[in-house]
């Protein structure tokens, strides 16, 4: 089977259990089993080639520009691991079918399990280290789901998060390491990297890469000081513990170290980091394991200890140690998975896995007793089981290892580790199965159904037969796997049970005797242990996480607490600072424009402007006053435009000013008359300071611009030259607005239109809520003028209306050649209508308004857009204008331009937008009983009978 298919199979198969669970638990587990079986068979079809020493490869291009490709290869090491993953996977699937209870969502379980399986297979088959990283992180994610499978258990959730955090951190470090490594080697493909030993070890980046990669391996394989997540991951269902946390996932780190062994191992750094970590882990975890009462916790620490053992062997850097490591990987997987499963059986049948509540199970559960005993003895390193052989090989290696020129320290510590290892193994047998039978157990006890014991029984059989016939059963695979690790330096491997009486055997005997002694005196030692104060990893981890979360929360909430003034202050200072940096880093010529002398007009204007601005600052808390002064400022600016020969701008500014002031007055009607004080003291000083530097900054920039002639010639000359010939108008400003940059205008009328409908939408939203009630019950702050719609004003505005509209039309039509245009005309027309609203009241005016303002806005935008589109029919770009001169007697020759049509769109959009805004704001003031039928409060015609008729007559 192709390796790509092999790697993809578990992922593809992962959907089936989740779907088939609807057809029952057997269908679900059967599907998972089938998928795994097919993958296993597929793997085995490649096995003969690998056993012959070939390397099977499969390649698919994925992201070649980065060097990330779906390149797979299968060599001895990969075959060993893939075989373990899929083989034990099969056993676990069988076991889990009978382990999980009816309440557990089994479909999810198998789906997660297959996802995990796929990720693991991916790791061991990857040729590309970036691809390996992908699968690596996937194992973290899928194990997160599996550990948290019993989501109702807090330990499960916390354990899952802890595992994800720790292994995730390692994985991230590894990303960095792999990227560095690939850069040194010039490729991310292992087949290339593994040939670059000299280049890699000579590189100055070797140490960083090594440390980062080892961080990944150590966290995954639970090496000290990252070991603490593994015991907490035991909150997972036991099949998960047996599969992930003893047989496969935790070995991913070992796999990686073995994989990288040819290029990374052999240096002092490798030896001291890897071997030391392994040794420390092995001893520490073995000691802790002895004192754990939870069966799974005991096994968890024992796993950590054995992982440390293998790590240490890999760290030694000698080929023989690598062989021992590979062999122990196999042995550990068999006996530890069997032990986990039997612990699960005990838990399942007895209802507890607390050693203190167990004991005397040997007669009640004979089968479990036999299996557990054999596996435990293998773990303790007793002959004739497989654990013995690899442990002897390990002890043999420690004798040849010097640690900082100290020849015996490694051997002694390894023996100590072996002592405790033997001790906890014996304890597992003695305190669970031996001893007196108890009066009562949480559940009635008996051996389980075959579905539960078949899997461990198979593994236990392996433990025995590999121990008895290592040469026949294991030599071949160990040979090719070790050959792959060492790059062939291990030569041909010979495995045998009995090496004669030698130093390692003596060390073993010492370890076993001391182990027995430790169990003999367990109660006393336990007392000492319990009295001692020990650092508790989970407490520390939780404290760190809590502190980190708390700190994050504090930082986030403090910085983002919604204080706009502070946000704006930061914006201002940052902008000013960078602006200043940019300015001071560049060069500039001296101001080269001649300053003009002010005349009396400009001086008066200047004083008005500055004076009114100063007044605004002084009186800004009185909102009405502020508005009036704002009007003065606007007026002065209009005057300034006019003085500087920009009549279009002046007209626009003036009409905009009128409309805004009216709208603001309307809004002020609903607001408090005074702005609340902004605070005093330092706060005020700060605000004044900020305002001052902001103002000075902008002023400085303007001065710098205005006091210099442009460095380069502006494009505006073109507009002056082509306004009449190309745009058909002599008013360049208008031609720019509707033609040269008509597209900008198009955008701006849309902005105006959107603004109006947003105001409408806000009004609707607000009036929908509780605000409405408050508005309805609102009492005006002071008595209203009795005459809401004064007669004089009503009459005057009525008269004014046609005149104002005529002015608007006039301004509109002259716009193309003289100051004016659709925008200004729109504002003037809007003012004409607003006057009616003001004088005669909202209801009266609205009743006479036949076209909804939404529609007017829409039509304006549409007319502008359609005018623009018209050019397409002449195969010209959007908004291309056309104009021509027509003579219709008796009129004089006049101009027709599409630009005028566009300007009509502008006109309508402006009128609609202003009026919709006004209408929306007015709705706040609406109160019941406000509908006035008459235009005036004092109706001059009220005595003449039918009011309706009078209305109609107007």
């Amino acid at each position: 089977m192709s390796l790509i298919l092999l790697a993809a199979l578990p992922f593809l198969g992962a959907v089936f259990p989740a779907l088939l669970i609807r057809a029952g638990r057997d269908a679900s587990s059967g599907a998972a089993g089938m998928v795994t079986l097919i993958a296993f068979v597929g793997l085995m079809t490649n096995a003969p080639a690998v056993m012959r020493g070939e390397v099977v490869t499969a390649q698919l291009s994925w992201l070649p520009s980065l060097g990330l490709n779906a390149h797979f290869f299968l060599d001895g090491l990969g075959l060993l691991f893939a075989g373990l993953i899929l083989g034990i996977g099969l056993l676990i699937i069988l076991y889990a079918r009978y382990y999980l209870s009816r309440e557990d969502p089994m479909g999810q379980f198998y789906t997660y399990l297959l996802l995990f399986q796929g990720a693991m297979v991916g790791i061991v088959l990857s040729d590309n280290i970036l691809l390996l990283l992908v699968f690596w992180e996937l194992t973290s994610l899928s194990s997160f789901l599996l550990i948290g499978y019993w989501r109702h258990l807090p330990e499960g959730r916390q354990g899952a998060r802890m595992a994800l955090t720790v292994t995730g951190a390692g994985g991230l470090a590894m990303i960095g390491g792999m990227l560095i490594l690939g850069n040194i080697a010039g490729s991310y493909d292992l087949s290339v990297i593994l040939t670059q030993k000299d280049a890699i070890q000579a590189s100055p980046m070797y140490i960083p890469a090594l440390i980062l990669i080892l961080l990944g391996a150590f966290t995954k394989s639970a090496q000290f000081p990252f070991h603490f997540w593994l015991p907490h991951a035991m909150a997972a269902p036991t099949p998960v513990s047996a599969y992930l946390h003893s047989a496969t996932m935790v070995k991913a780190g070992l796999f990686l170290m073995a994989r990288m062994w040819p290029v990374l191992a052999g240096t002092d750094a490798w030896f001291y980091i890897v071997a030391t970590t392994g040794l420390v882990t092995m001893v520490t975890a073995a000691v802790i394991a002895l004192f754990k009462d939870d069966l799974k916790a005991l096994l968890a620490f024992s796993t950590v200890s054995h992982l440390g053992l293998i790590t240490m062997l890999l760290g030694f850097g000698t080929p023989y140690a690598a062989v021992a490591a590979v062999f122990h990987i196999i042995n550990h997987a068999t006996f530890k998975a069997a032990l986990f499963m039997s612990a699960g059986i005990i838990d399942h049948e007895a209802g507890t896995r607390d050693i203190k509540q167990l004991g005397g199970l040997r007669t009640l559960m004979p089968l479990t007793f036999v299996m557990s005993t054999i596996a435990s003895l293998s773990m303790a390193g007793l002959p004739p089981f497989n654990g013995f052989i690899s442990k002897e090989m390990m002890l043999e290696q420690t004798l040849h290892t010097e640690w900082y020129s100290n020849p015996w320290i490694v051997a002694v510590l390894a023996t100590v580790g072996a002592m405790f290892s033997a001790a906890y193994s014996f304890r597992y047998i003695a305190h669970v199965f031996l001893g007196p039978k108890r009066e009562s157990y949480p559940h009635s006890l008996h051996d389980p159904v075959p579905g539960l014991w078949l899997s461990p029984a198979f593994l236990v059989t392996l433990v025995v037969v590999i121990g008895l016939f290592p040469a026949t059963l294991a030599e071949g695979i160990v040979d090719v796997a070790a050959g792959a690790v060492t790059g062939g330096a291990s030569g041909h491997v010979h495995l045998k049970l009995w090496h004669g009486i030698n130093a390692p055997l003596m060390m073993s005997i010492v370890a076993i005797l001391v182990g027995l002694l430790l169990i003999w005196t367990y109660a006393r030692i336990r007392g000492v242990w319990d009295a001692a104060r020990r650092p508790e990893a989970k407490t520390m981890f939780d404290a760190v996480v809590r502190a980190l979360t708390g700190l994050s929360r504090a930082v986030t909430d403090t910085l983002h607490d919604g204080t706009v003034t502070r946000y704006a202050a930061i914006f201002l200072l940052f902008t000013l600072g960078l602006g200043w940096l940019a300015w001071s880093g560049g060069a500039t010529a001296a101001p080269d424009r001649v300053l003009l002398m002010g005349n009396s007009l400009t001086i008066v204007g200047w004083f008005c402007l500055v004076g009114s601005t100063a007044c605004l600052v002084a009186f800004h808390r009185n909102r009405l006053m502020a508005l009036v002064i704002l009007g003065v400022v606007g007026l002065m600016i209009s005057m300034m435009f006019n003085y500087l020969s920009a009549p279009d701008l002046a007209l626009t500014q003036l009409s905009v000013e009128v409309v805004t002031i009216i709208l603001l007055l309307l809004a002020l009607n609903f607001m408090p008359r005074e702005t609340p004080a902004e605070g005093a003291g330092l706060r005020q000083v700060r605000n004044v300071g900020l305002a001052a530097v902001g103002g000075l900054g902008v002023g400085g920039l303007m001065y710098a611009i205005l006091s210099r002639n442009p460095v380069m010639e502006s494009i505006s000359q073109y507009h002056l030259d082509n306004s009449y010939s190309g745009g058909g108008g002599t008013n360049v400003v208008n031609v720019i607005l509707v033609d040269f940059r008509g597209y900008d205008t198009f955008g701006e009328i849309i902005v105006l239109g959107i603004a109006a409908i947003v105001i409408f939408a806000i009004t609707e939203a607000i009036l929908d809520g509780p605000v409405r009630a408050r508005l309805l019950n609102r009492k005006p702050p002071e008595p209203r003028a009795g005459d809401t719609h004064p007669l004089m004003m009503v009459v005057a505005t009525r008269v004014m209306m046609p005149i104002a509209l005529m002015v608007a039309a006039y301004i509109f039509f002259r716009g193309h050649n003289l100051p004016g245009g659709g925008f200004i005309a729109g504002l003037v027309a809007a003012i004409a209508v607003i006057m009616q609203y003001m004088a005669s009241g909202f209801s009266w005016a609205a009743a006479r308004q036949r076209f909804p303002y939404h529609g007017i806005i829409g039509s304006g935008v549409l007319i502008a857009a359609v005018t623009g589109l018209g050019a397409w029919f002449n195969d010209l770009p959007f908004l291309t204008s056309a104009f021509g001169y027509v003579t219709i007697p008796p009129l004089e020759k006049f101009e027709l331009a599409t630009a005028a049509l566009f300007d009509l769109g502008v006109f309508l959009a402006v009128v609609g937008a202003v009026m919709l805004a006004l209408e929306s704001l007015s709705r706040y003031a609406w109160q019941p009983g406000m509908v006035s039928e008459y235009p005036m409060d004092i109706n001059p015609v009220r005595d003449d009978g039918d009011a309706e008729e009078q209305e109609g007559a107007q």
Partner: protein
Amino acid sequence: MNHWIIAPVVLPALLAPFILMVIRYHLDLQRIFSIAGTAALVLISLVLTGQTLGGDIHVYELGDWPAPFGIVLVLDRLSATMCLLTAVLALAVLLYAVGSKWDERGWHFHPLFQFQLMGVMGAFLTGDAFNLFVFFEVLLIASYGLMIHAGGPVRLRAGLQYVIYNLLGSTLFLFALGTLYAVTGTLNMADLAVRVAELPADQSALLRVGAVLLLLVFCIKAAVLPLHFWLPAAYSNAPAPVAALFAIMTKVGAYSILRMYTLVFGPEVGVTEGLIGTWLLPAAVLTLIIGCIGVLGTRKLGRLAAFGAIASMGTLLIAISVFTPAGTGAAMYYLVHSTLATAMLFLVADLVIERRGNDRIASDVKLPQNGLIASLFFAAAIAMAGMPPLSGFLGKLLVLDATRDAPGAAWIWAAILITSLIMIMGFARAGSLLFWKPFDPSLVEDEPVDHQMPKTGKTAEVVTARAPALPFLATGGLLVALIAMTVLAGPAMNYANATAQQLYQQQDYINAVLGGASE
């Protein structure tokens, strides 16, 4: 004459007023037209993308005025990609908005949505700096309207802050444009590029100020620290589909930076040398950090997504601010990814919030449809945190690879990797609290009536009863897009690299615009 270029702007610009004028009281019709229009936008964008595949740069001279005197639209690979991304995102978001009935909780959702699309499309297509300002205004005002859609005091307050802060940005935009125009006398981007390159070094000060101010404007839009403050409240309080659409709004800032600071103030321009990347890069790193800290530190789901968005902008800006073709290529890939992922996260968050009735990250509500939503959340979290197997991981690898030779690369790498961990922790915490932890009645608080919440579907039961498929379809569609980006990473990256290459062939752009021949 190739009118396709203007179509993404004109179509929504016609559709929105049409909806306003004719069918503003007919929600069903609005939905049909809005969805059809957006689907058409996808097709148009596909055509545009197809036109740029050969590496051509298309220019459209509005009003038939020659550049640089009129306004030009320019279509190159970058703008076409952005348009396509916008259209695809908009379609998914719109389907969600219709399916979840968000669009009926206030006025004028569909016209505003179309205007918003017009603004975004216009910004991506224009070749004129002032016109960019105009479209910034269009999209700002439309986004404000969308943001406060459905109202409620909290949302209105957040909206006010949003609009105030962005108006500061608009003002600054005008200052920047004024300064640039005062120095160079032009606003056409290609022409600006030519003139900036010719500017005598002893006249550089004003131009430098203009360049920096302009960059700050874009940084506000892109939510770069310390100009990001507007984002968390705005995004977390906006209606979910709108927040999801806003995933493209920050990208408008990123796009503008890419465009202006490769074309006009590119890395080889003498007068602005050392002015841009030197502070943008550290600022981007800090943005990433503050985003991830926020993800871990927040107690609200909306803010979780908002800070996730900030973090992704940080990563994106890191890739942009090295200003190399490799970095820009990585940025292109990451940009598309992060837009889709951010949008998806907001939509999933809304699926949760709709069913919970509040947006606290706690186990105080029983969640219906737990499994499916939990899976979607898991996928969105994986995408945002940049874990495999989704495109975020590839994007992160690309960014790491592209910053290998940048100054302070070790720090950048450390920041990216460590923040990833913080983000993983944050998402794992939120996910396990929301989906794993059993219902805890003691956590239920009597809250004052919250007008931010939907008027219908206040209780979980009601939501279960209707549980429309469309929102799931839309969210799932975004996930499919992310998966496609992952599987097709090779071709996608070739495209991204070609796009980046084109950005650094500035002369091609200039020739296309100023060379005269407009097709």
